[in-house]
């Protein structure tokens, strides 16, 4: 099942790129997501809001993608996700020092997706908002 991504640029208090994920994020498309974010970063995006309202499913590879997205948005090239777990930990070291990722935020995660993020502890990496409006208002 293909995932659709929609990208919009919103002028909130700061320019925010909103990327809406529609469908299922799994092993078949997670690398594409990282590529897309890499392109956005190259094009100048510095605040990324991932709108997960229509994300019906996230697999473990999707979690890997979220880690990689954080890495890209920190201006660092993520490693090959098959092998580069070490780099992911550098991201989590930021968590250890209390540095939640501000340049990638999440909104609208449906209960099934929120549950996976919470269960695996990845929710602690992100600021999460109930919906797009409240997220944009927070910038």
């Amino acid at each position, binding site marked *: *099942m293909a995932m659709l991504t929609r990208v919009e640029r919103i002028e909130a208090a700061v320019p925010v790129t909103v990327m809406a994920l529609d469908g299922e994020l*799994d*092993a078949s498309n997670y690398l594409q997501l990282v590529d897309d974010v890499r392109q956005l970063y190259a094009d100048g995006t510095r605040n990324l809001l991932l709108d997960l309202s229509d994300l019906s*499913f996230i*697999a*473990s*590879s999707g*979690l*890997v993608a979220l*880690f990689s997205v954080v890495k890209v948005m920190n201006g660092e090239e993520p490693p*090959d*996700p*098959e*092998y*580069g*777990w*070490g780099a*992911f*930990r550098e991201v*989590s*070291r930021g*968590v*250890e020092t209390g540095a939640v990722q501000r340049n990638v935020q999440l909104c609208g995660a449906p209960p099934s997706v929120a549950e996976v993020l919470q*269960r*695996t*502890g*990845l929710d*602690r990496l992100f600021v999460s908002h109930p919906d797009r409006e409240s997220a944009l208002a927070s910038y």
Partner: protein
Amino acid sequence: MTGVGAAPAFDAERIRAILAPFAAGSERLCVRVEDARGDVVATSGDMPRSASPSLSRELRVDGALVGRVVATGPAIDERLMPAAIEALAVSLEQLADADRRAAMSDRDAVSRASSAIAAELALGRVQQRTIVSLIAPDVGGYDLASHYEPAREIGGDFFELFRLRRRGHPLGIVIADVAGKGIGAALLMAFARPVIHTALSAASGPADALERVNRILVGELHTTLFITALAGRLDVRTGLLRLANAGHEPPLLVPGDGGAIRPVEGGGPLLGAFPELGVGDVEVQLEPGDRLVLYTDGVTDARNPAGERFGKKRLLDALEGARGATAHDLVATVRDGVEAFCGTTDPADDVTIVAVGRQGAA
């Protein structure tokens, strides 16, 4: 190109990919692969100083020496590394064997590559089944059952039921899922399994065990693993089960007295991602007639031809419909339910189900 009878050449690039999980620039552990002449084909990083302990295993195909795999570094743990090196060596031998067969049988480059990959995957699947599917121990008063079906593309599920070397010989229970696919995930699985096994015997409890494993993965070995894991220690005399959960699906308790099936909640983040887990033990009293069902997301994420997922609801319904069944029948019911649901769709992920039942009437 090697001549007849000479050592088959290893594909250095492919081996480097296999060694990559051991890399991450660690000066505490280095794994290298040598060919039959002792020349280094690939290495996971810089060699530690020569005073470091090392472990090596010959690589043989049909009895002929084709090379050697060597692990060196202060992080080598005599109890843990042999299993990891063995798994790595077997994979490398399979690669060498597949390459040799392909080279002998067909000069065409394309079919050579595809037959090597096919052989690799087929052998990998057999190997993985062997690693994962150990026979459950006999534990008086309990029945234990499991089902494990690896996906076509090798995944990283594993589980284990074993008696711990501690007073009272409690039952150790482990189920885990390495994120990712392919031979890398399978190798990481082969590495993590004995680490968790040993930790569960040595630690004060399951949470302490997972904390130790996480510390090894994150800080010590610099092997980079990303694993959800559930570890438990069951006092078989009293039925008291202590569980710790690192990002895994909560197990389901099916009470023998007809009470509602409930997930055993509580836990922390997955292994390998954060420096500290901060998980605690959760206690579950298994009464006679109670069943505990553990599973991986391959069960709930299994898809039918219409693209729907099996999901928790169907899992709970299947368990509800098999109330009073033995652990074995409970596992069979879920397995059959998933297979019937998927129909002709190939499983995209490993499917693992484990059940622990305390015998007796509620």
